[in-house]
């Protein structure tokens, strides 16, 4: 066999292998899909089912669809918000029933395929910034209700803006490979060994609530370990840390009274914790609108999450920082108290607070630099706020202050470095 002939055979082999791989990727991308009728389905025109619309409206609220599908200051559901990812910006599309720029020509089947399979009406693969790895678990009946609600909105003519992703992430081929590796359509199946509440909670947390879109770590390809992973993760680009919902050292709620978990998701504030940053938006636009029954179900599910293995204990700095103590006296004591006790319902306690002693210090730095409010909700319409200190405290000051807070009143957490502060300050400007 000559070298030339071996090369040709090798090349043919490689091409065949590539074709097989491409076919496999393509098959993995469309398998399990039902036929989508291209004609408009019964949901277009026809009488509006008010009960269905109301049910869908509650689901859409609970999943906070509006949060991503509304530009800041823009009309609700008309899209245009850029979702920043490490691969570039994905821009949310118009969900209003405008025929030219929105979902006006979509059928319930099309909508189902987008939610369950992550494919658009025209067959394009959708970016998982639209959390269909979670939404795939939403039931067909719920998807139809949500679609009926979207159909009932006033159409808004607002053309979609293109995504601004870097090569090769802007190609359908790259997306197909990603999906072949990390996405499988799935259906929620009740576990008969569990209570109806737990099963309902699992359905909401893993599916529509898409909690793990933030509360889990992402790999180099931007994929999570799947909708069941709630072990906490740094939100890309925003650099807020969405704490573990399973760990007793982070935001695990196994030891909380169920009513308090419900209260936190309903109002944004609770005795044992406040929401700030991105979770403020989640509660303000989303969870506060869920029914008490659904919130109790989510709480039951979250409380039953198995705790991860116990991490190595943290050690605080041996000598408390005098500079930190002085800064605390100047800037913090008026609200958070001499012993870090806070004021119930208004200012969080810092003594014994997991938000303070958590391994990741990203959120602490955000809160000190930028301040913030919990959301205004029906249950807490006039929240108390914290001022930003970005203009009065240097990176070194913030580090000393936080190191003091993390090692006082029984808190036992390692210090924060000026470098940590600088990284948070400059990464967000």
């Amino acid at each position: 066999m000559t070298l030339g002939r071996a090369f040709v055979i090798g090349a043919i082999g490689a091409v065949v292998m590539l074709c097989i791989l491409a076919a496999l990727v393509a098959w993995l991308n469309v398998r399990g899909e039902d036929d989508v009728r291209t004609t408009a389905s019964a949901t277009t025109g026809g009488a509006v089912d008010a009960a269905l619309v109301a049910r869908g409206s509650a689901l859409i609220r609970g999943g906070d669809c509006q949060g991503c599908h509304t530009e800041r200051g823009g009309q609700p559901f008309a899209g245009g918000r850029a979702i920043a990812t490490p691969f570039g910006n994905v821009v949310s599309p118009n969900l209003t029933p405008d025929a030219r720029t929105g979902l006006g020509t979509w059928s319930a089947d099309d909508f189902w395929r987008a939610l369950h399979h992550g494919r658009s009406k025209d067959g394009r693969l959708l970016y998982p910034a639209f959390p269909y790895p979670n939404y795939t678990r939403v039931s067909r009946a719920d998807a139809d209700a949500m679609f009926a609600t979207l159909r009932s909105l006033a159409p808004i003519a607002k053309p979609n803006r293109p995504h601004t992703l870097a090569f090769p992430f802007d190609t359908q081929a790259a997306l197909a490979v990603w999906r072949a590796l990390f996405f499988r359509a799935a259906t929620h199946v009740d576990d008969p060994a569990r209570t109806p509440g737990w099963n309902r909670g699992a359905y909401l947390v893993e599916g529509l609530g898409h909690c793990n879109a933030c509360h889990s770590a992402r790999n180099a390809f931007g994929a999570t370990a799947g909708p069941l992973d709630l072990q906490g993760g740094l939100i890309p680009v925003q650099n807020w840390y969405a704490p573990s919902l399973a760990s007793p050292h982070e935001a695990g709620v196994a030891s909380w009274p169920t009513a308090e978990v419900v209260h936190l998701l309903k109002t944004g504030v609770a005795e044992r914790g406040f929401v700030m940053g991105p979770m403020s938006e989640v509660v303000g636009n989303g969870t506060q609108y869920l029914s008490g029954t659904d919130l109790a179900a989510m709480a039951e599910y979250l409380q039953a999450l198995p705790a991860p293995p116990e991490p190595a204990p943290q050690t605080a700095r041996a000598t408390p920082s005098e500079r930190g103590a002085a800064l605390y006296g100047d800037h913090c004591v008026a609200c958070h108290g001499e012993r870090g006790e806070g004021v119930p319902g208004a200012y969080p306690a810092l003594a014994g607070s997991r938000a303070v002693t958590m391994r990741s210090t990203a959120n602490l730095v955000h809160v000190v630099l930028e301040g913030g409010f919990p959301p205004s909700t029906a249950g807490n319409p006039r929240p108390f706020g914290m001022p930003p200190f970005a203009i009065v405290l240097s990176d070194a000051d913030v580090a000393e202050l936080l190191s003091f807070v993390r090692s006082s009143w029984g808190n036992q957490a390692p210090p924060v470095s000026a470098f940590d502060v600088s990284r948070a300050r400059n990464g967000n400007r």
Partner: protein
Amino acid sequence: MSHSGRLATNTIGRIVAAGAIVATLSIGVAARAAPPAFEDTMAQRVLACTGCHGAQGRAAADGYYPRIAGKPAGYLANQLLNFRDGRRQYALMNGLVAPLDAAYLAEIAAHFASLELPYPPPAPGAALTEEQRVLAEHLVREGDASRHVPACTACHGSAMTGTAPFVPGLLGLPRDYLNAQLGAWRTGKRQAQSPDCMAQVALALAPDEIGAVAAWLAAQPVPAGARPAPAFAVKPPLPCGGVAP
């Protein structure tokens, strides 16, 4: 003095010195004012605002964060909405008001609007030339009809203390702040609800005119007991999205 006597004196001296140090430390601790007790009030809720805008919203010393106390409620509420909805850009403000609904923002606005606090005298600034003063006063009181620039006083009141509830006063603001706002309107960095009348005005003015007007306004004392005019004296010359009909 005997050896033992000296020792005793030294010991007493040390005790006295130690006592003095302890006393000083105690005074030091006492001198740091005890934190004000928590009150379930709006003033307590908006401590997040007064950190930058000065106690009770009287303005910060640096001239960048403006006074908010006593500004008309509708104006303040519009600005909070503008920051929340992205028509005005300042990251700290945008972030703070993001999770708050319009009803609460209106309540925050009403709180600061209700504060009637004395104004400090104008900060000393570079003197205007006679030419600049004439130019500024003319624009403020007469405007320039040839360029469709109305007089500032047409909307902001003849005393320039604003018109309730939507038009702010122009006095008691630092020159840098006024310059920055008019500049931001020219570049589109600051916007109001459409139609954005102040953007039209700022774009019609030349940079040196803006400089003269800002310097002149910043040099005017605020009359004692200044309040926004209760209503427009004349029909506003431009349609403004931020002014409800």
